[in-house]
């Protein structure tokens, strides 16, 4: 098990680690092997059981469409489907999802063919910065799976756990209603 290295030069100035000081394999966390079913594919990774699913997705599996927003499940930027229900990946530890079916935004499309929601978002130009978009698509996909012809009010309520700061809300709602029509 490796030791952390404190880098403290004289007078508290930054010291410099030798160029190759970090090249060696550092001590690994108290890790377990996890088998995750993400977008229909089984993947194995080694991490601490408390690791939030978000970092396993983004950094271990390189599924970066799921994004960090708050770390406490309050903004929706990191929503994924867990057995079909939207849930915050930032707040869900790996131990809680072993064996469950996880769908990320990358799993909405079929190969290169985008999900009808994604086509509708493009048609409505339903984003500005786009950082919250993945999580919103996940919530919307969950809604349409349960309620294929929602009213505008139902769409808004289904998206209330997703925050958008740029003010793209109405375009997003129009896009979800358009996708439901198609």
């Amino acid at each position, binding site marked *: 098990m490796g030791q952390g290295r404190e880098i403290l030069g004289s007078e508290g100035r930054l010291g410099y680690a030798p160029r190759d000081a970090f090249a060696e394999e550092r001590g690994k966390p108290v890790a377990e092997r996890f088998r995750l079913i993400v977008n229909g594919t089984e993947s194995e990774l080694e991490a601490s059981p408390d690791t939030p699913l978000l970092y396993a997705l983004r950094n271990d599996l390189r599924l970066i469409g799921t994004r*960090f927003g708050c770390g406490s499940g309050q903004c929706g930027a990191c929503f994924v489907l867990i057995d079909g229900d939207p849930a915050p990946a930032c707040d869900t530890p790996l131990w809680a999802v072993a064996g469950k079916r996880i769908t990320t935004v990358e799993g909405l499309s079929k190969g290169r063919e985008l999900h009808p929601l994604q086509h509708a978002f493009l048609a409505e*130009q339903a984003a*500005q*910065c786009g950082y919250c978009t993945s999580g919103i698509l996940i919530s919307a996909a969950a809604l349409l799976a349960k309620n294929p012809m929602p009213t505008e009010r139902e769409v808004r309520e289904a998206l209330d756990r997703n925050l958008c*700061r740029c003010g793209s809300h109405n375009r997003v709602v129009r896009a979800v209603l358009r996708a439901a029509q198609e």
Partner: protein
Amino acid sequence: MNTVAETRLKRPGSLEKNPRLSQWLRVHRDGTVSIYSGKVEIGQGILTALAQIAAEELGIGLDRIRMVPADTAASPDEGVTSGSLSIQDSGVALRCACAQARALLLERAAARIGVSARDLQVTDGAVRGAGRSTSFWECADDALFDREIDETAALRSPADYGVVGKPTPRRDLPDKIAGRPHFIQDIALPGMLYGRVVRPPHNFAGLISLDDSKIKSMPGLAAIVRDGGFVGVLAEREDVAISAQRALRLTATWREDGPAPRDVYTWLKEHAAEHRVISERNNVEAKSRAAKVLEASYTKPYISHASIGPSCAIAQVDEGKLTVWSHSQGIFNLRRDLALALGMREDAIVVRHAEGAGCYGHNGADDAALDAALLARAAGGRPVQVQWMRDDEFAWAPCGPAMALSLRAALDSQGDIVDWQHELWSNGHSSRPGRAHGPALAAAWHLAKPHERPSAINMPLPAGAADRNAIPIYDFPNQRVVNHYVHEMPVRTSALRSLGAYANVFAIESFMDELAQAAEIDAIAFRLRHLRDPRGRAVIDTAARRAEWSGWKPVEGRGHGIGFAKYKNLGAYCAAIAEVEVDHEVRVNRLVLAVDVGLVINPDGVINQIEGGAIQATSWTLKEEVKLDARGIASLGWEDYPILKFSEVPAVEVELIDRPELPSVGAGEAAQGPTGAAIANAVSHALGLRVRDLPLTHERIAAAISQST
């Protein structure tokens, strides 16, 4: 005697600072054109609009344009992407550059073919004449554009436009909607370490102690980095860096800064250091007609940027050279401040722009860049990514300043305003990098040899900052406007979308309604009798027609209201009409906005910016206030700082008045002031009493009701 250089007119837009044609574009053999702009995509769609301008002047398809991300090593220095100026700065420059480039390419094509340029047929870069053909792609080489810009090059007439003025899909949205890597947060460089910085959740005056004995042995931790009160961790895994940051923070004790003021508005009035009369107009005869005098005071709280994606940066030190990836709005200014903070030469630093989440002003992007650079210096050449946590962002990104405003006016017996006074108290609205003596980057103030934290300043008028839009656009015979600048900063403040304009327009337009009521004149008719500017009158008329203002049917608990401004008194005209319903809370049902930005480049882009600005301003106006406790900022998460939710968002209708014959101005900030004012006026209309303190929460309304009875 004047020399030629002294009498030369300034070149338009950003050409003055970047006068070489080769700085702006490069034509490739493969039939594409690289466009170099110093302006950056911050979620506003600017790269799409600039690509349209370039394609239009070059006369080629939009899909041939490649927008090169801004980079201090390759891009023109266009200062900061702020102030709704990108179309004016970069758009104007690119329009000239691309017009000249096309003329040069045609000249060369003509020489190749052996006919005059007039006799060429040109389609999408393919050139034919006298039975022979060539193309822009064959004719271009680096030497061709290695010359000074000729700003007199003939520009295409807007009447002939085919790309500019057409709704154009955003170039960045396909990636973002498909969930593909696009953001700086998505970049993974080989060998990259993850860094986090340990900061107190409130104002900083120094680190007293830190116990890293337990954290040192945390598995997966690569390093703990300290420089005075700057403390960071490096780890192989991002989740380990976060755990280490959290654990280390629990062991830290901080010396606290002075207590935050209990009543910030009183505090501002007591601490004003400079008092400047920014506008004065005197007409004794008109003043003598004063029949009725009204006074009112308004307040606007600190507001947070509250972007959904916290600030992020990547840095790598290699052979004494530092490369930084940042979503900064001003990469050259950031480079200068990084050099100051790190004691490096600017030419040893490259800053590359990579897109972040939505940016609405000076947020934590630049600070995160220094965090990453400091950690990268200890990473043995490996790249380091730092992303702020949600509470870092709320506690450490600068806030939009709190403001107090007092207005006073006199009406004559005809209901005309004969005297107008406006005073405002505020901290400065800009503490961006690149403008002070020292680095304006948070970590620099905490180092063992600390740099002094610069105070926020105000940019000069006519654009102004705290006093942006404080000078009324209405025609009053007497007026006096005073900006009381507060130097001391209990909370770090800087630029937030529209700066002082949001509060000044809220106050002016609220007060116009109060005066209209006193004069017993309809709010729109009252404005129009004080406004000569025909473009201003046109947006008010257009919004009123679209909202069917005169057909309003009174319903208990409902109201409508208008707000109007010309952004900065220089830019876009915007009139907003709000329809609200008030019971326990305020609900905005509908917003109608009419906007004039001159020549419209991308109509859907402008509408998207106005819609977004209006919805964000609705959120500010109904909900937002950074809470302070004795230690500083107490709003550290979404539970303490709620923003507008999907089910609370009003219907928004935008009408554009296109003016192809007039220069384009920016759209990004035009809606903020008018929307806030329109909502406040509608709430007052619904309640029959005035709420003068933002945000218009249940508590504020209850307080206004109890004061009035």
